[in-house]
């Protein structure tokens, strides 16, 4: 991993609060694997002080992409960057999704949680049988469905909470059927905490390998400040940034 000043090659609004930023870095784009993330400086000043974590959405060396939602001050500042602006980036950070071959993998994405999954789907769909469940609040929050459909996917299911544009439902609505139908033995998921809680209830005890990519509020992003912890099922804290962000579902102590 490295700390670099990178050129913003593009920063485009996709829809509503959602943006795609193309950043130039030979190093990061070549070293990154699905699951990795970067810490991005949103201002060149002391306020806001902390860099913000974003999953790697896609690589195309010497470029990599982040797909982000504007939710607060930092992401808003990021959205205001223009082509040719420079941003400080640290990365690639964190661990990665395990690399499988010839498995029946189900991806489960909630909202902007699709970001690290997109990269994994692109990379793993050739060598595995892949299915996808992807849900969000409304069709305004469910982006890249057309692009995703272009990958060789066995089954895809899109949901919106309010039924706009796609099937009304949650990512868990038909998950057991989809798992059975496709002989799924591995899942990779990323989304809001509530989604993980439901996922854990639904599929936590099916005896398949479930991997989750977590979010946490981060200080450093590389394991030294001990601020991004989640409680593990063994009662010990784990650092999301360096022990994760990818964990086996059973490693985490879920609320429910």
């Amino acid at each position: 991993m490295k700390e670099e000043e990178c050129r913003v090659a593009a920063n485009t609004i996709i829809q509503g609060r959602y943006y795609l930023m193309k950043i130039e870095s030979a190093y990061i784009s070549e070293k990154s694997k699905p699951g990795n993330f970067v810490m991005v400086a949103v201002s060149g000043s002391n306020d806001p002080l902390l860099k913000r974590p974003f999953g790697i959405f896609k690589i195309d060396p010497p470029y990599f992409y982040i797909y982000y939602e504007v939710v607060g001050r930092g992401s808003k500042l990021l959205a205001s960057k223009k082509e040719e602006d420079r941003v400080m980036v640290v990365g690639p950070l964190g661990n990665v999704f395990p690399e499988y071959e010839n498995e029946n993998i189900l991806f489960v994405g909630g909202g902007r949680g699709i970001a690290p999954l997109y990269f994994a789907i692109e990379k793993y769909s050739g060598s595995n049988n892949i299915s996808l469940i992807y849900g969000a609040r409304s069709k305004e929050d469910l982006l890249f469905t057309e692009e995703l459909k272009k990958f060789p996917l066995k089954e895809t299911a899109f949901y919106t909470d309010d039924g706009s544009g796609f099937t009304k439902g949650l990512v868990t609505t038909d998950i057991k059927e989809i798992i059975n139908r496709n002989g799924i033995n591995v899942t990779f998921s990323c989304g809001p905490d509530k989604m993980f809680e439901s996922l854990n209830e639904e599929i936590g005890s099916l005896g398949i390998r479930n991997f989750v990519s977590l979010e946490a509020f981060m200080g450093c992003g590389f394991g030294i400040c001990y601020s991004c912890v989640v409680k593990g099922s063994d009662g010990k804290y784990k650092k999301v940034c360096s022990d994760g962000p990818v964990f086996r579902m059973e490693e985490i102590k879920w609320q429910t």
Partner: protein
Amino acid sequence: MADLTADLGFIKLKNPVIPASGTFGYGGEFLQFFDLDLLGAFVMKGVYTDERGGNEPPRIWETPSGLLNSIGLAGPGAEGLTKIIKDVASKTSTPIIVNVCGGTDEEYLEVARILDVMKEVAMLELNISCPNVRAGGSCPAQSSSDTRRVVKLVKENTEKPLIVKLSPNVSDISSIARSAEEAGADAISVVNTFLGLALDIEKRKPVFKNFFAGLSGPAIKPLALKIVWEVANAVSIPVIGIGGIMTGRDVLEFILAGAAAVQTGTVNIVEPTGSVRIISETLELMDELKINNLEEIRGGLKI
């Protein structure tokens, strides 16, 4: 080219920049970013006797140009640390400082003794000023008598140079610093974090389970600089200045205020290569201002 050597009396450092405890992990984590030999020294994350998990999250909160933290000294315990120290010491010749914590006098002593015998440890830093462990942010560094007692106890039972880290959350820092000096401290490091509060309006709750948390980062620099000046004028042992250092200019300001060296904290969290940048900036600024060495300006304020 200016001479960056920082003289602490009992040791000469190749430069005055020392990453601070809790913001530099155990050092090894930074090897992926730069060679640790570039640093003047570095301080490991604070350690107790036993393995600790630390506080319930959230543990940090961003404030304007600052960072509140309530990490709660998560760590492997003193015995566990010895292995980590050996490992990183095999990868660098830069002096390693261990940040010694304790819930009681006995614990301070025990931790200090375990680390005192390690040849890989250059100095001990006695952390009597952590605001994130006891209720209400209290710590020995808030009273002259507690400071004197703990420092004396540890100093009398250890061999290594002893740096005593003080808290800014006191009204008369000078007298506390003098107590530490009288009790045998070889150097003083100030400041640890300032007590602050963050509230969550939505939940109508404090952000941190421990209620108060410690403020660090550039926001505190003017406050820290004042305290370092006061301490440097109160004692004759070397002072290590800490608080919001982000640039080479900041380093020279602390030296001018009387510090013999500095510690960089939050900057390591927000910018992994920050301490190395700060070292080059210090050198450049010294050359620009024709300052040959740090002693030339240390405490040399014209008033």
